[in-house]
Each structure stands twice: as C-alpha cells, then as structure tokens.
C-alpha cells in the first residue's frame, strides 16, 4: 500500500502492460491505466457522441441488432421443424448424401434430411445462448478473482494472480478441450463452460489491472484521505470505474466464444445432440462434406463470421470511444 514506492509502481505498470498478453491471441489491447483520466458521465456522454457518428460502430451495432432479433423470432419464422428428418428418404450416402434445394426447401437439407434454412434460422438462438452464457460465466469467474486480487492486494493478490498465471499458461484451446472432455456427458452446457473457462483468467487479469491502476489514482486517494472505508471504495469507486474495459472485453468475448464453440465442434468435442441446431456445431460437423456439399459448411460459417464481426466491430469502436486518448 505504498504507491510512492517506485519499484511497486513499476511492477504495476508492467502488470498493466501484461493485460495485452492476458487477451492471449485475442484482439484486445487495453490501456488499462488510462481509463481513469476523466471518469464519470462526461466520458460516456462524449463516447456516445463519437459512436453515433462512427460508421464502424453503426455497422457492428446493426449486425448485432439483426442477430438478436432473429434469435428471438426465428422459431416463428422458420418454415420447418429444424429437428424433423423430412427428407431422410432422399439421403443416400453415396449418390445423394445431402439433398439439394427443392420446392419448400430453398437451401436443401442437411445430411440427416433436415431443412437447412430452418436450421440456420433457429441456429441463431442457440448461438446467441452459447455466446452470452459463455461470456457471463467467464465474466463472473473473472470478476470474482480479479476483484479479490485487485481490491486486497498483498498476498491475496499474489496467490490469485499465480492461479491466473497457471490458467493462462495452458494453451486456451487445450484448456477448453480438456474441460469439454472431462465432462461425463458432453452437452451444450459443457461447451459453454469450456469456452467460458478460457475467459476467466483473461477477465481476472483485466479487472485486476484496471483496479490496480485506480488504487493509485487521485479520486481513490481522495476518497481514502476523506476516510471512506475500504469496502465503499471498492464498490463505489473502483468497480464502477473498472467496468469500461470489461464491457469492451465482453463484447469481444461474445465473438470469441462463438468461434471457440465452433472449434470445439470441429475437434469432435461439441454438443453431440444436434436436435437443437447451433452454428458452430453445424460448421464443425459439416467438415466431411466440405468438398462435395460445401453449402453445409459455408452457410453456418458465413453466419458466424458476420455475427462475430458485428460484435467485434462494436467492441473495438466502443473501446476507442472510451479511450480518452482518442478524444481529440
């Protein structure tokens, strides 16, 4: 608790820098120390001012909006039951493994004779669920660890951060595979947990870095000087002001989760039950049709790319808007 100690400050600086690594292969580079320059409403308001005029943000936001609306209404607009093997009698592994487009089935069917269009439409729902829940779980885990570490410092911090280091040192996909594989019964939930687990240390480091930066900042020092107790400082000052980068990171993690879920399916560790379609699963399982019937892979892939792009565009422009340095 001696912010004047230069060695300590240097370490904090390094830690703040390490946030870039915490994003591990992701796209996030957060200048965690810089959010607190001008906290409060003015930052958000001015951010919004700039976002409204930013075409990148508008594009990302509209994609996201369309996706969410689609996920909500898709069961009502899908022409068929996505789980019904309507065209199974046409399926012949050699001559006709995947029934093509025909009246009533504009995109044809999949390898089990189910309407592809309906599966894509309804798939948006499960995809959204995977993305949102993986992000929420990752965030919850990260918040718990990060806030504990950032708020108390000292040996608590050291201990938590060593755990985080251990988690981070395992290649992220492998961590996800292992968690997916350890489950006795792989399912949508195990996929979500596996994808979320990868994000826990990322969020934890992010939160901690951001709170560390604040611990030495003027408004926290002022609060402390005024005799505000530790709990109040943590919950009223430090957490709210750390949320900016967390929101940005969450938007990005939504995209990463959807892509990671697809990778798990590709490696055969996805949800084995495909009655409820999900894009990542559809793409992962379409691998063996990729040459003769590429539509099975290409449509879900395009959906994933567009949606992931939407989230990423939104997240990146949010980050830029919240970064005081870019306010010029």
């Amino acid at each position, binding site marked *: 608790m001696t912010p004047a100690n230069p060695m300590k400050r240097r370490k904090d600086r390094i830690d703040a820098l390490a946030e870039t690594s915490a994003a591990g292969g992701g796209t996030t580079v957060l200048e965690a120390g810089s959010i607190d320059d001008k906290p409060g409403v003015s930052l958000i308001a001015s951010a919004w001012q700039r976002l409204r005029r930013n075409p990148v943000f508008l594009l990302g936001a509209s994609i996201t909006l369309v996706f969410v609306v689609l996920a909500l209404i898709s069961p009502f607009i899908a022409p068929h039951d996505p789980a019904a*093997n309507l065209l*199974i*009698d046409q*399926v*012949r*592994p*050699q*001559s006709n*493994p995947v029934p093509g487009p025909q009246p009533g089935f504009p995109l044809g069917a999949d*390898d*089990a*004779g189910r309407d592809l269009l309906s599966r894509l439409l309804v798939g948006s729902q499960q995809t959204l669920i995977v993305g949102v829940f993986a992000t929420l779980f990752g965030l919850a885990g990260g918040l718990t660890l990060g806030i504990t570490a950032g708020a108390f410092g000292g040996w608590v911090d050291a201990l938590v951060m060593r755990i985080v280091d251990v988690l981070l040192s395992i290649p992220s996909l492998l961590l996800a595979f292992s968690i997916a*594989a350890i489950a*006795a*019964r*792989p399912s949508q939930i195990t996929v979500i947990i596996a994808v979320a687990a990868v994000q826990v240390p990322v969020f934890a480091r992010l939160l901690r870095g951001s709170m560390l930066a604040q611990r030495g900042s003027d408004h926290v020092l002022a609060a402390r000087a005024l005799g505000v107790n530790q709990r109040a400082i943590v919950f009223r000052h430090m957490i709210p002001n750390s949320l900016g980068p967390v929101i940005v990171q969450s938007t990005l993690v939504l995209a990463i989760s959807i892509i990671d879920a697809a990778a798990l399916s590709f490696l*055969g*560790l996805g949800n*084995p*039950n*495909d*009655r409820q379609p999900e894009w990542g699963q559809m793409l992962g399982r379409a*691998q*063996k*049709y*990729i*040459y*003769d019937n590429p539509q099975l892979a290409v449509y879900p892939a395009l959906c994933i790319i567009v949606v992931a792009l939407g989230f990423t565009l939104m997240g990146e422009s949010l980050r830029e808007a919240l970064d005081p340095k870019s306010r010029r």
Partner: protein
Amino acid sequence: MTLKRTAPLVLLTAAALSISACAESQRDDSGTGGNGSSDVKDTITFGAAGAPELFDPLYATDGETFRVTRQIHSGLLGIKPGTADVEPELAESWEPSEDGLSWTFKLRQGVTFSDGEPFNAEAVCYNLDRMYNQEGAGQTAAEYWTYFFGSFSDDPEGSLYKSCEAQDESTAVINVTRTTSSFPTILTLDSFSIQSPKALEEGDANNVQAEGEGFTYPEYSKNPVGIGPYKLESYDEANKTVTLVANESYYGEQPKTAKLVFKIIPDESTRRQELQAGSIDGYDLPNPVDWQGLEDAGNKVEVRPAFNILYMGLNPERNPKLQDLKVRQAIAHALNREQMVQSQLPEGATVASQFMPEAVSGYDESLEPYPYDPEKAKSLLKEAGAEGMTLKFAFPTEVSRPYMPDPQKIHAAFVKDLEAAGFTVEQVSKPWNGGYLDDVSANGAYDAWLLGWTGDYNAADNFLGTFFSNLKSNDFHTSVMPWGKTLAEDLKKADAVVDEDERATTYQDINRRIAEEYLPGIPISHSPPALVTSGKVDGLVASPLTAEEFDTVTVGK
C-alpha cells in the same frame, strides 16, 4: 494498397518457386532412372491415417502399423489377395497330426532374410520360441500373442502354443495344447511374422521396458529385418513419412514399383485433398459420402467385402428388464435398421441377421433380420409390462470405425426409433478413448450401446467367441442369463471341432439360437470399407481384412 497487402506473400511464393525451379533442373536426371519403363512412376505414395508404432510386428497392435510391416515381413501362412482365405507363404504346405495337436509345416526353400541370413526351420522355431518366452513388459507389449495364444512360457497351462521342433532344414513341427479352429489360421496375422534370428539377437529385440506410462522399445524395432517384397529405408518422423524400397533378396517377384512411401495424414479430408492434388496415389477408408465425388473426379474406389459387424449391445445385469426376451425382441423390431443402412452406410452394406458376416464359415443363410415393426415392438413391450421403460443408450464420440462411420448419427436415428416404440431413452456419449470402452467393458455402465468388430481372420470363433465365450466377463453380461453358460460352453466345443463341415453346422445352429432364443444384443449391419486410388494406379487388390499388398501396384505417369 492491395499490392502492399499481398506483396510479402508474392515474394515468398516467388522465392520458393524460383529456388525450386533451379533445384528441379538439378535433380532432373535422377528422376527417370530406376525402373527402365518410362510410362510408370518409380514411387507409390500412399496416405496413411496414422503413424506406425514400430516395425517389429510382435509388439504392434494397430492397422496402420501392420500396413507397413506387412510389406517388409512374411508369416508362415498368407492371405490370398482379395479374400479372407489362407494360402501358403513361407510354409508351402502344412498338416495336422491325427489328434490335431501337432502341425507339420513344409517350408519354402532358398529363402533369405533381407540381411542375407537363411530362412529355415530353425529360424521358424527361434521366432515362435522368442514370442513364447517374452518376459516382463514384453509380455504386455506383445498384445496379439496374449490375445490369440493366451499366455507365455511362465504360464504354460494357459498357452495354446506348446513347442516347436526343427525336424530338418525345411520341416518345422509346431505343437499346440488344444485343438481350435483358429490354429493354424492365426499364423496369417502379421504379428507372428518370421524375422531374422541374427538381427533379433543383435538388436536386443526383446528388450522392452516400461518407462513412465509407456514402453520403450529396443533398437531392433526401428531396424527390422524380415522377408518381404520391400524393406524399410527410413522413417522420417519430422516429416511424417515412411519410405520402403524394394528388397533385392526377396524370393518372389520384385515389386513392380521400386519405392513405396507412406505419408502420414491423420485427417481424412486432408487425405482426400492430397489425392485430388495428386500428391498421394491413394488412401484407406474414404468416407462413404466421398465415394461418388472421388469417382466422379476420376479416382477408383475399391470396395472391400464387408468383414465386420456393428451391433447394439445390451446389458441385462444393469437393467433387469432386459432379461425379458420380449423386451429385447421389442428393441429389435423397433429399430429401423433398413433405413439407417440406406441413409448412412455405403452401398453394399447390409442389415445383419447374426453376429458375423456372410464370408465366415458357419454363417446361417436362412436367418432373416427381425423386421422393422414399431407396432409389434409396442405390443411386445406391453406384454412384458415394460412400457415406457428407460434405456440408457450410449455412443462413442471422437471416433469413426469401418463398421460405424458416424456413431452420433446412427445413435440419433435409433433413439428416434426407440422413442417411437415407447421406450424412454437416456442418451449418453463419451469419447472413444476417454472412457467409452471402459464403460462398456469394465464398468458395464450402459443398458445399450453401439460397438462392433472387424474380423482378424476367417473363423467364427473370432466373432462369436470374442463376444460370448468368456462367461465370467463379457460385454453382454450373459452370465446373468440362464442360457449364458450353455452358450459359452457350446462355443468352446464348436471351436474345438476338427472337421470343418461339422464345425460349420455347429456354428450355424448356435447362430440360429442366438438370433431366436437368446438375442443377447441386436446385430445391426455389415458395412464394406473402401480404399481409394487415383485413376492411374493399377494392380492394387482390396482385401476384406484390409491386408493389401503393394508389390503388384503400378502408378502411371
């Protein structure tokens, strides 16, 4: 802008191309040498799905290893190309004694190992004794010996093998402890190939050690010396290729193509791409959904006769309701196997009526599969008082077998069928290597599951015996059924019958009883695995045992 973006890529490619251009001119003269005839290539490149474990087949356990060792080793008995039938190889003829306990093998003469050592009766006995006398970790590593011969010299009671005598240079007599339909057929298996005694000795071939959780193998396993059309030139682990070259000292005809390269490509779709791009000449087990596309692109898909069985196992111990024959029959009627076979398995696949394929002697042709009849299933279930009964039905993930290309899809189809017939299905899955096999065999954790078997050689015992002979512990838990003991004993008796026709009739009778009275599980299907080669490949004969030989193969330019 675009130029800048792609510039480094262009530069990299250009650099590669220009270097290769001058390099090609450098090597041009060496390319056409070798075989003389200019319309065929001097190298076959085959896409293998996995790396060979090692090159001493005694310790090998998987098909990818045997594919390689088969080209560099020979056994006493061979397999007639394109069939599952036995033919002479290093032994020219063989004959049992009256009691069937002593077999005399007349050996081919004038044969040498690839290190120049002579092949004779002594070498044969040296090899068999070497296998029999395995010690320590070697015993566990020699898995095929344990499986087919029972035990080693420290437990002679359990072993099928008794002793071997070299009567003269070209006559070896092998004594066994009991009669079985499996002997001498098991000598066709690659594991029991005859290798050079001198090289085995010098390479300290038996020195297998357990280290950590794996075995380490002696030098010999990397430098095998056998009798085969090819010999090992190199195994480039870093580049995942195995290179074999013609063995000049081979007694038979020299291979038509002097060099045989196995390129290890675990991913099936990558193998297909490599074939399309022309960088490999063929690969094993193309996915049925690719067959048409591959043929349309000018490749040859060789379909092997089906020598396997996919079944749904049932565990009457875990779920006592399954002890009622009516419930088991209800399952058999509930499954729409015909539709599953048509929509998921390749052409040539058939619905199974019994637990072994047609090619095996003892197959009962008069048996018909239970017809798909959901109404009958419902009424049978009602009669048994088991309507709505729960069935914990499992399938493996992370795996594809020749008899089961996509377990998840087969499972999904059957779940629908079972639910339609009034069962409540609890769906379970586990990774193949991640607990599925343990749960099926050791833990008995499922009521019903999907599994199958590919025959090792042509004998009914290799199928039925594998499934039901071991009363104490088999996957089907037949020990809790009143007929379990009878079945196990009858199978052992049938296996010991010496006369072939008599043995076949006995097995037919057993097959009928299994299908009609016992029904320990539901036989599902036989599925023909295939092999694909480019249109330029000639002379590759597909084998039902997946025991292809490459010495007759040519690749056109």
